[in-house]
């Protein structure tokens, strides 16, 4: 009987501690509004960069900064490297992460030129498992509007987007295919793949 009460008491204390520990993070947890807010801010910065009239080099720098600020860069880099990431050294992972961010900014930054005079509009948010899907529509001159989707999670403790789809085309999968092909072409040599990545995009 005593035993039972003590166990009950321990359980209660544990629950209280857990509840207390969880309370602040629960208050900050990702929800539809904060996921939408992140994408709104991201879209706003992208639109500003496009409208800035900067040189291409200047725009890539901006995109690199935007990418670092709004996306879950370590997740995106780890996903892109796929299974090869398991045998990469710490230094290789770091170097890859750094070069991969620059590569993404060049590759997608150069494509954002097509957005000049266009705009992105956020139109819906829905929860998917433990993350959120934010759908936006891109309006470009002389073209039917198309869908650009962002996936947002708070895996890192902050709200970040970790994947992007353009008309269903998955950025992560596309880049994993690319990095995988670069590694295969170099007979599995990760250092040479990183060197190639500097020139790619």
């Amino acid at each position, binding site marked *: 009987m005593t035993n039972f009460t003590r166990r009950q008491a321990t359980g209660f204390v544990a629950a209280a501690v857990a509840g207390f520990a969880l309370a602040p993070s629960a208050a900050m947890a990702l929800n539809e509004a904060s996921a939408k807010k992140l994408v709104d801010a991201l879209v706003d910065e992208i639109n500003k960069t496009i409208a800035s009239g900067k040189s291409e080099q200047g725009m890539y720098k901006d995109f690199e900064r935007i990418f670092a600020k709004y996306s*879950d860069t370590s997740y995106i880099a780890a996903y892109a490297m796929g299974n090869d990431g398991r045998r990469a050294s710490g230094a290789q*992972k770091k170097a890859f992460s750094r070069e991969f961010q620059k590569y993404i900014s060049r590759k997608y930054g150069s494509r954002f030129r*097509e957005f000049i005079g266009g705009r992105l509009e956020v139109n819906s948010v829905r929860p998917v498992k433990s993350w959120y899907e934010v759908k936006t529509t891109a309006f470009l001159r002389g073209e039917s509007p198309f869908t650009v989707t962002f996936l947002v999670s708070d895996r890192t403790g902050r709200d970040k987007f970790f994947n992007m789809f353009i008309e*269903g*085309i*998955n950025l992560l*999968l596309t880049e994993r295919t690319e990095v995988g*092909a670069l590694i295969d072409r170099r007979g599995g040599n990760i250092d040479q793949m990183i060197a190639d990545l500097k020139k*790619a995009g």
Partner: protein
Amino acid sequence: MFQQLSYRTRRASLPILAGIALVLAGCTQPGPGHDPSVVFDPHESVNRQNHEFNRALDEKLLRPAGVGYTKAIPDDLEDSIGNFSSNLGLPGTVVNNLLQGNVEGAFRNSVRFVVNTTLGLGGLFDAAGEFGIEEIEGDFGQTLYVWGVPEGAYVELPGLGPSTERAAAGKVVDLFTNPLSYVLPSPEKYVGTAAGVASKVGERGRYADAIDSILYNSADSYSQARGIYLQNRRFKLGDGDAAEEINPFELDTQGF
């Protein structure tokens, strides 16, 4: 006139039936142990040969023509040629909407066709788009998907590019699904075909950067084109929920 029409329709139904039979019999099925996240590509070696052929064709012919076309033709005219060609395709789309039981899509596309043919001066201007009436896409490959025909293997067709066995069979049938091709007399028909070719060439020029990055700036353009085609095609069909496929909490990001 109507007698002639029904005669032609009857004549046309034969290849359609033959096409359907071909699809039902011809779509290759992956074995039971096949990992669904891996592309089903049993014809890869033939596909890669076709890919090399397509890439050479693009480099020597389509790309220069497309880039030249986009430079030479003013943007407005280019848009009009594209609009004209896609407007002529709408009746075929409506047929597929109906075959899929998508009455709303068929209605929308019909309104689009009428508005663009009249207010849009024969389809040169996308007047319906200005009112927010966008096209609901439909082709026979999509119809087969709705009917439950499996996707089949991935194929890259010479001259036509990435496809699946189901979509390729759909393309064959779609040569016969557009009612306009039975109604329009010969010279007008060829104007439509010419506009179709011109708009395809124009698209190659307009999306030059995007297409170049896949065909010429990727480490393995065959797998890149394959992945991009399949994802986009499935997205348009509404097949699967891509947003659910990757879980960010299941990956070891230590060190990145």
